[in-house]
C-alpha cells in the first residue's frame, strides 16, 4: 500500500508569498495522478513538498499512512524524475543508476542485479558504460526514470519529465511511461503543464491555478464537466469557445440558454440540475467545445476566417459577431462549404452547452455538489 494523503497542505515562502493554498488530496495506492496547470500554479511546489525538497508550511502529508512532514526525503521511500533529468554528468549510466544503492550500502551483487534488471526494462543496457552527454534526450530520460526505478519506491514523482523533449519523442516517451506504469505498478504523481499529457496519462487529474486546486477528476470528468471557466478553458484542445453576455432564461418552468439571440431549450438533465439549485435567470457565459459544433444547420451564423484541412477534419476559425469561434468539423459527409470567407450556420446539442455564472465563473450545472447526487459529476467542490 502506498497511498499519499494531503490534508490542508500549504506553502508560504519567506517573502510571504503563498504558493500553495490548502491542498486536500487523497491519492490511492497504485493510482496515476497528474497535477496540471499553467506556470506558477503551485503544481511543482506541491510535488516538491511530497518529495521533501520544500518544507511544508502548514497541513499534513501522509505517505503509506505515516505522517512524513518532518521525515527526510531519503527516508520517505519516494523517487523523483526531474525535468532536466538531473543525471550526474561525470558518472556513467551504470553509476548513475547505482548511486542511490551505493549510498544505501547495498552489496555489489545486489546493485549489479538491480541495475541490469532496470536497464533491461528500459532498453538501455547497451548504454551502461556511456556518460549522459553521449546519450540522446530520450535515452537520458530513460536513465532518469531508471535511476528512480532501481530504488523500488513506494511513490514515483515526475516533475515535467517530458518537457525537454521534442514533440515526436514526447509522444513516444508518453507511451513508454504508460507501458512502464503497467509494469512497475506503483503510485505515480506526475506534474505537467501539458493538458494532453495529463489527459492521456492520468487516472485522475488535479487542475491547479494560482496555488488552488480547481478540480479533481478523471480525464473524462474534467473534460465533460468542468467546474469553472478556468478548467473549461484549460482542458481540451482546441480551447472551448466561450460566448460572453448570454442569458439563462426561465420561461414556463423551462430553462433556456440564449446565445447571440438564439434560444436553446436545455436538456432534461440540465433542467433538473438548475431547478434543484433553484437557479434564477441570469447573465451567463456559454461554453461550447469545438468538437461539439455542427455546421450547416441551426440559427447561429459565423463567417469563416481560416479553414485548415487536417485530413479527417477541418479546423475552422470563424467570427460570430465579436466572438471567435473554433470548430472541428469531420470531413466525412460534409456538404457545407467551409472554405475561407464562407458564411456558415452552426449549432450544438443543448446538453453539450456549458453554462457558467458570469460573476463567479462557476459552472451552473457541475459546480454544485448537490447536483452530483443526480447522476452527474463526481468532481469535488473547491473554493476558488
Amino acid at each position, binding site marked *: 500500500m502506498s497511498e499519499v494523503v494531503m490534508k490542508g497542505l500549504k506553502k508560504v515562502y519567506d517573502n510571504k508569498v503563498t504558493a500553495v493554498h490548502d491542498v486536500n488530496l487523497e491519492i490511492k495506492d497504485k493510482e496515476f495522478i497528474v497535477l496540471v496547470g499553467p506556470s506558477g500554479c503551485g503544481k511543482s511546489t506541491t510535488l516538491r513538498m511530497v518529495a521533501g*525538497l520544500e518544507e511544508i508550511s502548514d497541513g499534513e502529508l501522509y505517505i503509506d499512512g505515516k505522517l512524513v512532514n518532518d521525515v527526510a526525503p531519503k527516508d520517505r521511500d519516494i523517487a523523483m524524475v*526531474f525535468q532536466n533529468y538531473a543525471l550526474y554528468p561525470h558518472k556513467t549510466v551504470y553509476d548513475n543508476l547505482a548511486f542511490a544503492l551505493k549510498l544505501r550500502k547495498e552489496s555489489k551483487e545486489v546493485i549489479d542485479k538491480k541495475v541490469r534488471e532496470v536497464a533491461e526494462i528500459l532498453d538501455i543496457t547497451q548504454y551502461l558504460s556511456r556518460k549522459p552527454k553521449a546519450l540522446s534526450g530520450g535515452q537520458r530520460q530513460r536513465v532518469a526514470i531508471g535511476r528512480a526505478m532501481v530504488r523500488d519506491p513506494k511513490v514515483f514523482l515526475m516533475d515535467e519529465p517530458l518537457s525537454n523533449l521534442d514533440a515526436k519523442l514526447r509522444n513516444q516517451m508518453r507511451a513508454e511511461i504508460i507501458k512502464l506504469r503497467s509494469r512497475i505498478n506503483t503510485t505515480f504523481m506526475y506534474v505537467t503543464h501539458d493538458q494532453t499529457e495529463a489527459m492521456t496519462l492520468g487516472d485522475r487529474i488535479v487542475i491547479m491555478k494560482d496555488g488552488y486546486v480547481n478540480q479533481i477528476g478523471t480525464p473524462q470528468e474534467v473534460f465533460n464537466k468542468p467546474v469553472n471557466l478556468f478548467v473549461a478553458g484549460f482542458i481540451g484542445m482546441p480551447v472551448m469557445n466561450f460566448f460572453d453576455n448570454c442569458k439563462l432564461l426561465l420561461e414556463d418552468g423551462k430553462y433556456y440558454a440564449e446565445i447571440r439571440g438564439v434560444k436553446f431549450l436545455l436538456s432534461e438533465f440540465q433542467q433538473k440540475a438548475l431547478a434543484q439549485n433553484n437557479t434564477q435567470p441570469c447573465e451567463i457565459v456559454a461554453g461550447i467545445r469545438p468538437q461539439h459544433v455542427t455546421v450547416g444547420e441551426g440559427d447561429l451564423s459565423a463567417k469563416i476566417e481560416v479553414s485548415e484541412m487536417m485530413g479527417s477534419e477541418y479546423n475552422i476559425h470563424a467570427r460570430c459577431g465579436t466572438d471567435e469561434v473554433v470548430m472541428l468539423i469531420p470531413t466525412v459527409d460534409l456538404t457545407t462549404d467551409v472554405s475561407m470567407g464562407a458564411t456558415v450556420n452552426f449549432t450544438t446539442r443543448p446538453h453539450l452547452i456549458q453554462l457558467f455564472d458570469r460573476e463567479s465563473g462557476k459552472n451552473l450545472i457541475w459546480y454544485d455538489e448537490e447536483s452530483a447526487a443526480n447522476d452527474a459529476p463526481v468532481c469535488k467542490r473547491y473554493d476558488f
Partner: protein
Amino acid sequence: METKAAKLAAPAKQRAPKKKMSKERRIRYLKDNSPYLLMILPAVLVVFLFNYLPIYGVLIAFQDFMPGDKILSDSTIWVGFQNFERFFSDPQFWPLMQNTFLICIIGFVIGFPLPIIISLMLNAMKGKKTAKVLQTIFNGPHFISLVVLVGMLTLFFGRYGLVNNIAAHFGGERYSYFLESRAFRPMYILSSNWQDFGWSAIIYIAALSNVDPQQHEAAILDGATRFQRVLHVDLPAIMPMISVMLIMSIGGLMGVGYEKALLMQTDGNLQVSELISTYVYKRGLTGVPDQAYATAIGLFNSIINVVLLIIANTTSKKFSENSLW
C-alpha cells in the same frame, strides 16, 4: 547509366565551386563580424605591442650586449649559448634553482587546493548571506599592495612587532624573523596564500553557481549527505575548471615575481630569498648591468615554464577530458 569514371569525377566537380564558396563565405564572415573584429582590435594591438613585440628583445641573450647597443646592427656580437653556459656554471645556479623551486612548489601545494576547499565550503553553506560576507572578507587582502603587505609582516613579525611583543610579555626572547632563513619561506608562502586564496576562489565559486540545483536535489533523494553531495556533485562539476587552473598554475610555476622577495630580503635570509627573478633583476638592472646575461637567465626560466605547461597540458589531456589546447 552513369559510368564509374563519371561517378568518380562527380565529387571533384562538386568540390571546385565549394572552394569558391568558402572564399565568399570568408568575406561575408568578415563583413558580418566587422563590428566585433573592430572591438577586439585594440586588445589584439595591446597584446602584440606588450607581449609579442618584446620577444624580439630575447635576442640579446645570444649577444655580447652592453647597455646602449642596438639589438640588431653591424656591430652586434653574437655569442651563441655562451650566456646560458655562464649561468649553468655560475655558483649561484643550483641555489637559485632550489630556492625558486621550493618557494613555488610549496606555495603551489598549499595554495592550489585552498581556494577550491574554500569555494566548496562557501557553496555548501546554508546561510547564503553569511557565505557572501565571508567571501567579501576573504577577497579583501587581494587589494593590499605588496609593499603594504610586507609592511604588515614587519609590524607582526619584526623584532619589535606584535608577535615578539606578545612573546616578550610572556617572558620569551625576541626573535628576528626577517633575519632568519628558516622563517623566510613560511612567511613568504603563507602571506601569499592569505592574500590570494579568496580571490582565487572566485573562479571556482562562479563555476559552482552553474551547477544544476536539480542535481543536488536528486542526490538528496538518493540519500547523499552534504559532504557526499560536495564529493559527487560539486567537485566533479568544477573539475574542468580545476584542470585548467592546474595546467595554468603549473605553467607559471617557476614564474615567481621578484618584488615581494626583494622587499622581504635581508642579509640574514639571502641564502633562501635569492630567487631567479631577484637575481635577474639585480644582474640586469643594478650595479654594472649585464643585460645579456640577465635575459639569458630569464629566457631559461621561461623555457622551463613552457616545458612544464606542455607536460601539464599533455598529461591532463591524456588522463582527463580537459586541456588548454
